[in-house]
């Protein structure tokens, strides 16, 4: 009874003698669609559904669009992916971001320079000290401040500890996404030790705000070096433990080798940086290329892998943890007593004791807190090697106590933009592995 139904015109075709509707009736209604006829709900399979009610996924009948996230656990936050699938193969992947957008860059323009530090903590919340460092160094550059040796060494030391902590979260969640549960617990056991160290130094575990414009919030507490040594002594063994859990695992290898391939040229073109770029064989590390905070004085390697896949990025990060361990060891050996704040009374808050004795220290303290300090007009782009790649902070000042513009070039943001290039043509289960290998943090992407 074709005449009873309005059929889509496009489905009619000329068979030589007359117009005919295709014999192959479109199939596959979405889900377990139920037709409501009156009050009786009948299952779709028992009712002869008129064709115009059937949903056909254009253009191939086999493609369908699904929305992965924003609550999907393997998207590491609130990332939504619009995936066009052909069977299980991803034809098209479209990341949709902005669910965590809080207008941080706008907020910077309404806060004094020193108040901006706490905002940076909340961007890449797995690597807050790196964010602190990039922002603080950009402002220090505009102010032309000299940072004392001890403060620089402590910055390197804590930043490398933070890099290990960030990589540990990556490792745990990446393995968890792929199905290896126990790695997560081992990683978080080690990370806990680092967070305890950072808490001892700064008072904060996730949001330390330890670096201030002109130096550090305060010196390291007594016993910090001993506790760091304790951590370092056991850490290399823990890395070997992670290797025994994952590296020889055949399932893990099959899930990661040859997946999410991006060539070196493509990776550079897409702006990938950090371990994701080094997994494609490009030995680029900002700590080497444009050294900052005295990284040129440390002896470390820049690990690269040639395979360009998830496995290569995994190996790069595993090796990086050992390199960071080396840098921390060197920084510990280098720690010498000295000031941790620059000699700039108009910028750096005075010591509590000095405020009780000196009138000018009290005045400076009041002025810095109440009015802030003026930063000479100018602009600066400060790139650092954060745990996920190049973190660039662009600060523009028009001469007042508040910045005119602060822009964060988050490595996660740029690395995620390359996700379609890596994942199109892969299986849907591989998407999970690829996202894990990029090590994204949505707090930094959405800002």
């Amino acid at each position, binding site marked *: 009874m074709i005449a009873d139904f309005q059929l889509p015109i496009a489905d009619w075709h000329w068979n030589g003698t007359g117009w005919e509707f295709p014999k192959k009736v479109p199939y596959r209604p979405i889900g377990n669609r139920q037709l409501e006829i009156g009050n009786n709900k009948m299952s779709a399979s028992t009712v002869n559904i008129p064709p115009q009610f059937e949903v056909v996924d254009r253009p191939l009948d086999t493609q369908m669009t699904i929305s992965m996230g924003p609550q999907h656990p393997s998207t590491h936050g609130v990332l939504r992916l619009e995936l066009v699938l052909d069977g299980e193969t991803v034809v098209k992947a479209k990341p949709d971001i*902005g669910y965590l957008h809080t207008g941080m860059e706008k907020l910077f323009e*309404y806060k004094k320079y020193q108040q901006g530090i706490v905002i940076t903590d909340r961007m890449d919340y797995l690597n807050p000290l790196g964010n602190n460092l990039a922002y603080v160094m950009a402002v220090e550059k505009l102010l032309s401040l000299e940072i004392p040796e001890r403060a620089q060494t402590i910055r390197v030391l804590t930043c490398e500890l933070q890099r290990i902590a960030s990589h540990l979260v990556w490792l745990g969640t990446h393995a968890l996404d792929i199905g290896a549960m126990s790695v997560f617990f081992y990683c978080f056991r080690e990370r806990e030790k680092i967070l305890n160290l950072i808490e001892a130094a700064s008072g904060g575990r996730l949001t330390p705000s330890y670096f201030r414009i002109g130096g550090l919030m305060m010196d390291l507490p007594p016993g910090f070096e001993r506790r760091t040594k304790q951590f370092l002594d056991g850490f290399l063994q823990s890395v070997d433990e992670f290797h025994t859990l994952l590296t020889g695992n055949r399932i893990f290898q099959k899930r990661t080798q040859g997946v999410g391939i991006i060539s070196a040229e493509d990776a550079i073109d897409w*702006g990938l940086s950090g371990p994701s770029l080094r997994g494609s064989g490009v030995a680029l590390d900002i700590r080497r290329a444009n050294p900052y905070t005295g990284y040129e004085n440390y002896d470390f390697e820049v690990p690269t892998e040639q395979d360009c896949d998830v496995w290569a990025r995994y190996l790069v990060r595993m090796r990086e943890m050992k390199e960071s361990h080396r840098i921390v060891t060197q920084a510990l050996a280098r720690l010498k007593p000295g000031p941790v704040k620059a000699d700039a009374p108009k910028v750096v808050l005075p010591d509590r004791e000095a405020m009780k004795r000196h009138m000018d220290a009290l005045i400076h303290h009041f002025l810095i807190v109440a009015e802030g300090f003026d930063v000479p007009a100018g602009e600066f782009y400060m790139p650092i090697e954060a745990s996920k790649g190049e973190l660039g902070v662009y600060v523009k000042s028009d001469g007042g106590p508040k910045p005119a513009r602060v822009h964060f070039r988050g490595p996660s*943001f740029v690395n995620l933009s390359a996700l379609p290039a890596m994942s199109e043509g892969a299986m849907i289960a591989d998407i999970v592995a690829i996202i894990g290998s990029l090590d994204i943090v949505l707090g930094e992407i959405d800002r």
Partner: protein
Amino acid sequence: MTTGSDNEQELSAQPSNAVQDPITPSQLVTALQREHPDWITEVREALGEVTAIVPREQIQAVCAYLKTAPESRFDFLADLCGVDRGVEEEPRFEVNYHLFSTTKYHRLRLKVLLNEESPRVSTVTDIWRTANWHERETFDLLGVVFEGHPDLRRILLPDDWQGHALRKDFPLRGYEPYSLK
């Protein structure tokens, strides 16, 4: 610096000399300005950074040249960000391109100044694909239109958002609670 092959020969013959004489971004930009006076209107150097101000019509040509020329090789677009200089400023907007070379490790900033009436500039997505999201973000937050961009949609804010949130005349707390609309 001569052509690529000559340069390689020089490197193999006198490695110490070649290392001592790398061309700096400021020399590069001034040479480029001499060669193409219409490409670069001004060169600024401050705090160890070089900024070249480029007319908006020329940005694609300049970027394409800097990416491929053997002495510059800026193959990595590190960052692209827009700035609102203030409501009363003229030109009001600027777009900064932070270039980086993965082989020579030098950096350069290109700056395009845009009027409030027509904040439009050509896209550089066909030169560096990474510019795609950066340009979308700049469009979303500042309203700078990148002509020729393959997919110029909002990226951080919802599609039906009114206005551009990073402009100086957009209030910090917005006009009204978004959820009440």
